[in-house]
């Protein structure tokens, strides 16, 4: 982060951080709150494990498109001959656990015989990309509106407050379903390439644009207390313009709650993407997402259990890891809240 941010961090936080432990105080002497938080986080084994898993997913997600490009993964080639699939038996892959073999370590897709491992790995990329983009939209919109609402107050605050109420009262899932056809057609009309991109952007924006209110509320609460601090007063007296106040004075003090909310919103959107795929909204096959792989596998829960288990397991692991990571970060940044 930028140095002014850490300066401000120390400025706002010094009053609160006293370690009850004598030795710790000795060690801590001279450390910034960020270093303190890192120290606490590293001691938390569960959070470290969650962090490792999340990091692994992220690396896999980033590398997958390259691996597909260079032919390490092959998520699109069909193996639908009788050698691979039981044609008479509904296209279930032949062999142990749905066609597990050296060349297909997690088996094949029933009916068409694409490699499950390749599809899952590429599915992680698309699902994470959608969840990440949606989280950025939600956190971005929520932060800006929250800061403005908390800092300006009065009529603006009331208006944004009502906007939050209004957004929260929309039946989000129903809107997503009923608007999808129309909205995707509109996106295509304004020049977004049809297909995966248009579908992905639609899901991203709708998730994001319905997800910002809780973040705006949190941010507004924080801003209400920050704006009374001396350094804000000082900036105001020096005649700092509004934009500087929002983004240079207030925002750097919000990064802790934002980081926590970011890590907690991601998993919610990963599950949301899966749920929406089940309802037929979102990126469509053959482009894999964790959601559309899971949707396909549900009917096979009895005929080919392994095929159903793997995507469900991957989604569960990533959601739990992100949640644990978020909790860990919160505890590390604000030890009072945790114990």
């Amino acid at each position, binding site marked *: 982060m930028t140095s002014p941010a850490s300066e401000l961090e120390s400025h706002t936080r010094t009053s609160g951080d006293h370690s009850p432990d004598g030795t710790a105080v000795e060690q801590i002497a001279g450390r910034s709150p960020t270093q303190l938080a890192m120290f606490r986080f590293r001691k938390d084994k569960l959070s470290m494990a969650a962090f490792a898993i999340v990091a692994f997913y992220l690396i896999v997600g980033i590398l997958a498109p390259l691996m597909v490009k260079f032919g390490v993964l092959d998520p699109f080639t069909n193996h*639908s001959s009788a050698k691979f699939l039981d*044609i*008479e*038996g*509904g296209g279930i892959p032949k062999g142990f656990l749905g066609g597990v073999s050296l060349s297909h370590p997690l088996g094949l897709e029933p009916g*068409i015989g694409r490699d499950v491992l390749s599809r899952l790995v590429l599915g992680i990329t698309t699902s994470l990309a959608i969840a990440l983009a949606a989280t950025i939209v939600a956190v971005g919109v929520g932060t800006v509106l929250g800061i403005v609402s908390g800092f300006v107050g009065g009529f603006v605050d009331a208006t944004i407050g009502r906007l939050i109420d209004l957004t929260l009262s929309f039946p989000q899932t129903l809107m997503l379903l009923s608007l999808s056809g129309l909205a995707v057609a509109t996106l295509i009309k304004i020049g977004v390439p049809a297909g995966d991109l248009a579908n992905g952007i639609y899901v991203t924006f709708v998730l994001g644009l319905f997800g910002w209110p809780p973040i705006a509320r949190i941010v507004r609460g924080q801003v209400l207390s920050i704006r009374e601090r001396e350094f804000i007063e000082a900036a105001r007296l020096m005649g700092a313009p509004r934009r500087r106040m929002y983004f240079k004075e207030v925002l750097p003090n919000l990064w802790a709650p934002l980081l926590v909310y970011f890590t907690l919103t991601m998993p919610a959107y990963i599950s949301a993407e899966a749920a929406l795929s089940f309802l*037929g909204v979102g990126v469509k096959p053959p482009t894999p997402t964790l959601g559309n792989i899971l949707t396909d596998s549900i009917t096979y829960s*009895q005929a080919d259990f392994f095929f159903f288990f793997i995507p469900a397991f991957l989604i569960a692991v990533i959601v739990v890891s992100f949640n644990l990571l978020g909790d860990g970060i919160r505890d590390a940044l604000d030890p009072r809240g945790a114990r």
Partner: protein
Amino acid sequence: MVISRKPVAALAVSALLLSVAACGGGSSSSGKGGNDTAAGTKGGTLYYLTKRPTEHLDPTRTYIGRDIVDLNRTVYRSWVNYPVTSDDKAAAVPVADLATDTGTANSTNTQWSFTLKDGVKWQDGSAITCEDFKYGVSRNFATNLDGGPKYAVDYLDVPKNKDGTSTYQGPFKKTGQAAFDKAVSCKGNTITYKFNKPFPDFPLAIASLLIFNPFKQSQDQGEKSNYAIFANGPYKLQGKWNTTSGGTFVRNSQWDSKTDTIRKALPDQIVFTQGLTNEVINQRLISDSGKDQAAITDRAIPPAFYSQITGLVQKRSTLTDSPFVFYLTPNFNRMKNLKVRQALMAATNAVGQITAEGGSKAAKPAKTLINPTLVGYTPNPNFKYSASGDVAAAKKLLQSSGEKLPYPLKYTYQGGTPTSDKAASALAATWKAAGFKVTLDPLADTYYSVINKPTADGDVFNAGWGPDWPSSKTVLPPLFDSRTNLTADSNNSDYGNYRSDAVNKMIDAAANEPDLQKQGADYAAIDDKLGKDVAYIPLEIQRFYFLHGSKITGYQSGPATTYFADLGSIGVAK
């Protein structure tokens, strides 16, 4: 008939062997005439589990195969109908129902007459009259009653306006009534229909559709009659039909089994439950508990469940071919180069699609749009490539086409389910290998209303079609006659915007051929011409792989009921 205006996964049939074996004791064809054999126990409640809600119960407006056969076997009777029998040959020949015989035609087959049986009644006890039949036909001309087939308007000898519409406007407006009275006339109990061209298969049309059924004028509320049933068959509707969840048929006390040698009418009640998913329906039938033991369905077993269809469950399954053929239509507004269409045809891997849909229990490769059971069926010699696609031949054709490669190809298909998406990916794989740059365009909610716009930007579409009655006349003309299909804002059922004056001329010649065998040959010639132009690419004949409950007796399905369960023979064991 239209297989569906909505996404459909079901397919259908054949090995009657299996269905007969599955019937268990006593259901064989020897037990004709309503004998109370072991398999023919009267009473009980039959449950019909299904997914797609019925859109019309009005006989003039029903055009979905399943609904036509169900209503034909339960509440509606007509002059003639298909017999209840497990013999496929006999099942395809109409027998007298409300008429005394199967009708008399003049020498050119342009005039048909039928005479009404005595003692047949409506559900309110009033006698069915010849005038009721005449009124029923007249409703076909009413422009506000949409949905049904338009054969009556097309064939009856009522003068047409310049724009092709009839001068008769139906019984509500009554414009042009005199002309209609000439075309359809009653003399005592005998009706005479006059047609503007030969109609040698008219009895097949009566038995296969509901548009020539009688309709009592005093019961007609126009569009409001859409979900009303005024019955003359063994059952009547109890209360009202719920448009989302279904309804219940109960016995019609005014029906006299002595006048009806076709329907066995065994169950006391038939409960229709609609709006269930294929997975739910088939899981319930596999479990076979409680009321589901007396249940049947029109939804095929999803491939994911095939492994559970063994032992006792397998004995409750039937597998037959269906009359529905699925095909691809190149869009002639975009794919104008014949070589490119030929390359597409050569590269098409129908087997890949069939595997994705569940393999040989779901469908089998088709060599023409004309179903093998129809008169004049000949495998179309133009579709000569392997059903798995011939990539090498396709590459050659595409390279010789003079187009820039890879050739962009947008495939618009009825999608939204994992199965349909996999099927499309399977087709795309060989197209790509042959040199096409494929974009998949699945449409989930509305399909036919999108692709029947001439402006649709797909290069190739998928579609399914089943004959209205066993004749190629109800396959090729409705799909490829550009005069009846193509208008400024719709291509109706000619989804590929195919236009050929030569084919139109051949269609007219075939329609005017009074001999059924020669007519069949005429349609084979039309099919050959369509194949030369690659107006369509046949994919598969759907098969019906259906389950039924363990208490079902006399289960059968055949050509008489377009291979859906025959409600005329099915009973429920105690």
